[in-house]
């Protein structure tokens, strides 16, 4: 095999996770989904839990997440992933169960399910991709769309009078006693990718400790929906999304001072 001749073991500095399948991803170039998938796959591989992990995929762009991570998956109805994860974890407490949800799925149609799963303190991990827009259906307004942001259903920009305010789900679940770890990350630079991976790993490891729900928001871009090229989209995210969706840990129940989170709850 030619590949083996070229790529000698001693030359390898980076390898695709074994938990990622060989399927070609359907995501648009520049999309954050692929990076986050990779991080989850690496965490699962590094923790050695491929045979114990059940993923719950949403409706939205990541509906086909099951094609990319080589684990057992349940495909949920729109918004219901936390209900599925609840039952799966309760019926098989020794498994690692996570939901992978976008903002339309988690913050809009599935708002009740995520609030109640977090409030019950289900020992699950929630990965929340927040790009402020519905990607799959062609760029409509999401609950997380920023004020003034143009989408297919807010062609003149999100108007508070008409559409209300963007919803900070992550701040919301951080207030619930059932959550043990709530953080907001991104994957637009190598440094943030590394940080995000650490957060995801922690969110999975928390399932061993049975201390409640771990919630990782990944503030993301949607080049197609935002109609901005990838690099500019990253800059736009930093300039606009990060102002509203502040990056960092909102809650870590293992750290001592609960007052630390208060600054995020404004």
């Amino acid at each position, binding site marked *: 095999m030619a590949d083996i001749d070229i790529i000698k073991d001693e030359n390898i500095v980076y390898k695709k996770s074994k938990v990622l399948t060989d399927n070609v991803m359907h995501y648009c170039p520049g999309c954050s989904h692929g990076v986050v998938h990779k991080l989850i796959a690496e965490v699962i591989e590094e923790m050695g839990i491929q045979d114990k992990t*059940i993923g719950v995929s949403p409706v939205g762009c990541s509906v086909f997440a099951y094609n990319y991570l080589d684990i057992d998956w349940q495909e949920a*109805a729109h918004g219901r992933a936390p209900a599925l994860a609840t039952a799966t974890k309760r019926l098989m407490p020794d498994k690692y169960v996570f939901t992978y949800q976008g903002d339309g799925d988690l913050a809009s149609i599935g708002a009740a399910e995520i609030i109640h799963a977090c409030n019950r303190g289900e020992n699950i991990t929630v990965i929340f991709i927040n790009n402020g827009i519905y990607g799959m259906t062609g760029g409509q307004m999401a609950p997380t769309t920023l004020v003034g942001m143009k989408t297919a259903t807010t062609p003149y920009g999100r108007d508070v009078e008409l559409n209300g305010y963007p919803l900070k789900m992550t701040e919301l679940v951080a207030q619930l006693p059932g959550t043990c770890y709530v953080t907001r990350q991104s994957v637009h630079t190598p440094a943030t990718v590394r940080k995000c991976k650490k957060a995801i790993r922690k969110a999975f490891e928390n399932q061993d400790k049975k201390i409640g729900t771990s919630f990782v928001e990944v503030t993301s871009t949607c080049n197609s929906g935002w109609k901005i090229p990838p690099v500019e989209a990253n800059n736009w995210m930093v300039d606009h999304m990060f102002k509203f969706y502040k990056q960092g840990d909102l809650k870590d129940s293992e750290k001592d001072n609960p007052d630390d989170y208060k600054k995020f709850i404004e």
Partner: protein
Amino acid sequence: MGELKLMKGNEVIAHAAMRCGCDGYFGYPITPQSEVMETLMLKKPWETTGMVVLQAESEVASINMVYAGASCGKKVMTSSSSPGVSLMQEGITYIAGAELPCLLVNVVRGGPGLGTIQPAQSDYYQTCKGGGHGDYNLIVLAPASVQEMNDFVDLGFELAFKYRNPAMILSDGAIGQMMEKVELSDFKPRWTDEEIQKISGSWATTGKTADREQHIITSLELDSESMEKINHRIQAKYRKMEEEEVRYEEIQCEDAEYIFVAYGSSSRICQKSIEIARAKGIKVGLLRPITLFPYPTKAIAKLAERVKGMLSVEMSAGQMVDDVRLAVNGKIPVEHFGRLGGIIPTPDEIVEALEQKIIGGK
């Protein structure tokens, strides 16, 4: 012989679940079936059999919890009443589409809308003719006694797993709320992980081990050719059920000139009507469908060859009567009688309807 008890139908559902090795119940309170979850919470089966019981935030959540539990190869169930079951329809069609086994219980109350909390049988269309979107059927069992509330929990799970299809116990407020003598089933242990592997190991999401491919539970297939094949496979199961799983009871049909067709609590009232009618010299019998899907079409067609008319008695505006008419295929008159909105017809009213609509009819 199990224990003899005097119990409400709803309580019996809970006891039967604990005794048949059910792994999980996910529910949401609604009258007239709240005793199911109340009984489970009182008995705390998680301390004995290990059964999980959870009050969900909505029927939408509870049916999706059932979807997930079924995805894991577990014996899981929910119960609700009409408005709650309407909310569950999305989940039910996903469960049918993903070909998952589970048990659903509908203790029907009168509608439409919030309607009443009194008994009705007006969810026949929803249960047997669709409910959610897409081509699918539920296996539908219609208990007519508290004893059958016990028996059909086990039977429902058995059929659900045999066909990998959701099964529904279509009860009503009368059967749910009334007490009768019941012999509870003996305790069966829950399936072990090994047993689950044996029964559902080829598809359940129990964790992808190195020796097998990943298992994906989904009802999504964007390629139409493939989706048509899936539909054909699902339809083939329904045809097999129609061949092998039809259940019904015939009461005093041997010499009957007229037939009541009725299920559930209506079939009980019709038995009293038979006593009254026969005392008047009217030879009437009862065909009681036990499975509403698959429907006892052939049995009804056979009776139509030798009786003069049939009256479908339902606590609805006339839903099951469609299936009676399809089975009879125009051979003899078929009429409907029912009361609506939570009113239970009296035995006398039913005899009167038989006399007026069938015997006196043209």
